């Protein structure tokens, strides 16, 4: 009896065990995949691995654009149990009372949209409040938000991004592929309390590559500040400033006015503040373009700086069209070609241009980079307009010679002036210095003009900022030699098909003269009146920006600081490139310092007149030192060869302890 019961028990246990084993086999072998998937689904939660958009830095590593993680609250309106309750709840939690959320949700619901962003960029506290809500129809999405910590600084260079952090203007747009990051995903194994136990990476994040611009934010700020002040002061409508290193093409500053804050960009793409006047808005350059005319003349004709040019007493008639000097001052007679540029004579430039000829003029415009994209990575860069020779009219050569019938951008002028500054090489402007850790290679420079031509042009352009020049005294730098060219072009009104009385006042310059470290081009659009000329309106901006640029780049001074003030005394009345008749050729400080006999009255109370400074010009260094020693003077020599420039000028009384700066050159 007992054995029978035992057998029954054993059999029952065996059946029971077999059932369990069968079930286990079914669960763990047959249905393994399915249940493992379900387990993973419940235990593993996907998590986005952020891959922030690449930062943008200036050349010194100062951040100009950064991305920060942010969170947004979204709902599926179609799943909301009660729109009113949901709207009230969300408005209270997210502090958005009176935002019309109910209407938005209702509208989305009516249109059958299953996705509605309730609020972007919520605070951590708001995120915590939303997570604490016991509802399942609210989602918190992680995203990234672009910030521009310097506000309006370099806005036109940086551009901006849209809601999805995709570049839509400026560098942000042009280098979208480089800057854009691809977020990754990881699966986090969690316990019942949703605490992470282990994670595995499902998709590897690819952060955006940071880039460094050639811009120097300090210089950019100065350029923008001075530009804004000049536009307001001169009643202009817009303007631009470009600062460029002529040796390597680095753009140190690229300012455009009016500007905007990329953190709060203009809503429409047509907003005038979005226009990049430095690179995207071409204009007729006016007299600045005479630099190209004279350069071409030096290379293709037998004209030399001292070659006399007949300026026709103020007017010239070509094919029935009479062209005058900008303002009637009786006009110029015969003057050296160098003076044509220094005084910005229209007739003289036309005469020179006619000697150059159409084909050569066109050729040199192209050599200087006009009519072509400079290659800076800014969307919407304009190539300007240089018509081909077959499209020229009979008077086109005359017009082009003085900067009309051609349109250029400020960046193109900077590129062209750099050719003269660096010894004749066309260097492509560079705006991006580094991508990640790799330096962006510089495009090889192309020779545009001969080195001797560039050197001669520098010497001629120096006259523009010296007494008698159209850029004097505004463009004269304290402590640095400089050269440049003013430009004042009448603005053409496309509605009336006539030139207005408003100007594009511009100044293109370089400093220091012996080995230019910077090129600065300033353009003010819509100036008017006597103070709207390039020499009056744009040259002061050049002065301020160039002085700051030279200081920031640690370029050693090559002239005394108060040099310009001494020269300023020689300036009787303001000259302009439009009204220059009547002003004779002023003394070139490199050639003649005799006009500066009176030393500037200095603030030092103990200044005691010392020995008279002799004329060292033309002497060798040995002779200069001997002559100075015999008078008890101390010499600060610079360079080698023959004495060319000295300060104080000959005849001046040297102050006690004052050292005489003498520049030597071969």
């Amino acid at each position: 009896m007992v054995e029978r019961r035992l057998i029954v028990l054993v059999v029952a246990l065996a059946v029971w065990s077999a059932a369990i084993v069968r079930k286990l086999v079914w669960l763990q072998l047959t249905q393994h995949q399915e249940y493992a998937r379900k387990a993973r689904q419940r235990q593993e939660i996907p998590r986005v691995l952020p891959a922030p958009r690449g930062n943008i830095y200036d050349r010194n590593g100062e951040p100009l654009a950064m991305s920060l993680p942010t969170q947004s609250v979204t709902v599926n309106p179609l799943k909301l149990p009660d729109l009113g309750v949901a709207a009230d709840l969300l408005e209270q939690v997210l502090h958005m009372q009176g935002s019309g959320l109910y209407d938005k949700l209702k509208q989305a619901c009516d249109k059958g949209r299953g996705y509605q962003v309730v609020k972007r960029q919520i605070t951590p506290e708001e995120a915590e409040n939303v997570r604490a809500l016991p509802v399942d129809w609210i989602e918190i999405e992680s995203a990234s938000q672009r910030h521009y910590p310097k506000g309006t600084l370099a806005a036109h260079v940086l551009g901006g991004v849209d809601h999805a952090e995709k570049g839509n203007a400026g560098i942000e747009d042009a280098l979208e592929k480089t800057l854009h990051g691809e977020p990754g995903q990881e699966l986090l194994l969690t316990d019942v309390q949703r605490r992470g136990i282990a994670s595995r990476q499902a998709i590897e994040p690819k952060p955006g590559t940071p880039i460094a611009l050639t811009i120097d934010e300090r210089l950019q700020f100065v350029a923008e500040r001075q530009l804004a002040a000049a536009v307001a002061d001169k009643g202009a409508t817009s303007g631009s400033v470009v600062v460029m290193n002529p040796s390597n093409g680095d753009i140190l500053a690229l300012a455009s006015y009016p500007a905007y804050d990329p953190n709060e960009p203009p809503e429409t793409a047509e907003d005038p503040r979005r226009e990049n006047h430095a690179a995207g808005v071409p204009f007729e350059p006016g007299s600045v373009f005479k630099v190209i005319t004279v350069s071409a003349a030096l290379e293709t004709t037998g004209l030399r700086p001292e070659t006399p040019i007949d300026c026709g007493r103020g007017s010239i008639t070509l094919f029935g069209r009479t062209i005058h000097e900008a303002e009637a001052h009786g006009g110029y007679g015969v003057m050296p070609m160098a003076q044509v540029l220094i005084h910005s004579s229209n007739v003289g430039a036309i005469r020179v241009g006619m000697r150059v000829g159409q084909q050569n003029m066109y050729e040199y415009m192209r050599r200087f980079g006009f009519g072509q994209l400079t290659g800076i990575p800014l969307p919407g860069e304009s190539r300007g307009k240089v018509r081909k020779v077959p499209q020229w009219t009979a008077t086109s050569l005359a017009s082009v010679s003085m900067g009309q019938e051609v349109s250029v951008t400020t960046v193109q002028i900077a590129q062209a002036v750099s050719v003269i500054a660096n010894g004749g090489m066309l260097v492509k402007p560079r705006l991006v210095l580094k991508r990640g850790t790799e330096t962006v290679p510089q495009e090889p420079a192309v020779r545009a003009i001969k080195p001797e031509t560039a050197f001669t042009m520098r010497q001629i352009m120096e006259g523009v900022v010296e007494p008698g020049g159209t850029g004097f005294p505004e463009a004269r730098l304290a402590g640095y030699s400089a050269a440049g060219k003013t430009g004042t072009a009448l603005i053409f009104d496309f509605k009336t098909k006539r030139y207005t009385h408003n100007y594009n006042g511009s100044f293109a310059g370089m400093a220091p003269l012996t080995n230019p470290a910077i090129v600065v081009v300033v353009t003010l659009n819509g100036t008017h009146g006597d103070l709207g000329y390039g020499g009056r309106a744009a040259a002061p901006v050049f002065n301020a920006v160039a002085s700051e640029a030279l200081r920031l780049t640690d370029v050693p001074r090559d002239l005394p600081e108060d040099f310009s003030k001494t020269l300023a005394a020689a300036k009787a009345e303001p000259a302009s490139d439009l009204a220059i008749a009547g002003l004779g050729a002023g003394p070139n400080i490199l050639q003649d310092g005799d006009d500066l006999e009176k030393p500037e009255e200095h603030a030092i109370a103990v200044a005691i007149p010392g020995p008279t400074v002799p004329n060292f010009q033309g002497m060798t260094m040995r002779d200069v030192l001997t002559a100075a020693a015999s008078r008890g003077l101390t010499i600060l020599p610079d360079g080698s060869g023959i004495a060319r420039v000295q300060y104080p000028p000959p005849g001046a009384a040297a102050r006690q302890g004052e050292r005489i700066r003498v520049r030597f050159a071969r």
Partner: protein
Amino acid sequence: MATLPAFLLRWMEATRPEADAEPAETRAQRDPYKLRALPQDDLFFFCKKIDNSRLVREADPRAKSACWSAIGMASLVVAILAGVLVPGAASTNSGYRLESLRAEERRLTDESRALDLQEAELLSPARLDQLAHNQNLVTPKPGQVFHLEGDRPGAAVAMVKKR
């Protein structure tokens, strides 16, 4: 110490039907001057000394051996289980710590980026320029700075002339 029988007797008396049937006599009726009894007031505890010194356990080498074997086996099982389970537990524990540290790292990274942004905003040239102006710190114009020759060779003093 109250004994188990004492408790049982009390419980049995309390649950006896006859007792429930009897009319309850109140304490005031029993003795108006007697205080209410404290719980377990009627129980008395005492120590009973038991001398087991005469009992001597009989030596049993087999049982002792079996006992030690059991202890050894148990220790072995515990060691094996520990060897198997401890790494897993440590791994899980490390996983918790690792994920916690990763979350902390992400939080700190975000915080660092936020601080970088704040620093960049504070060091904005426009803001610094405004602060400098508020403090009357302006870049001297070229003519405002001049150098005085000192007594010693090479010595120079920079001064700013107020304009």
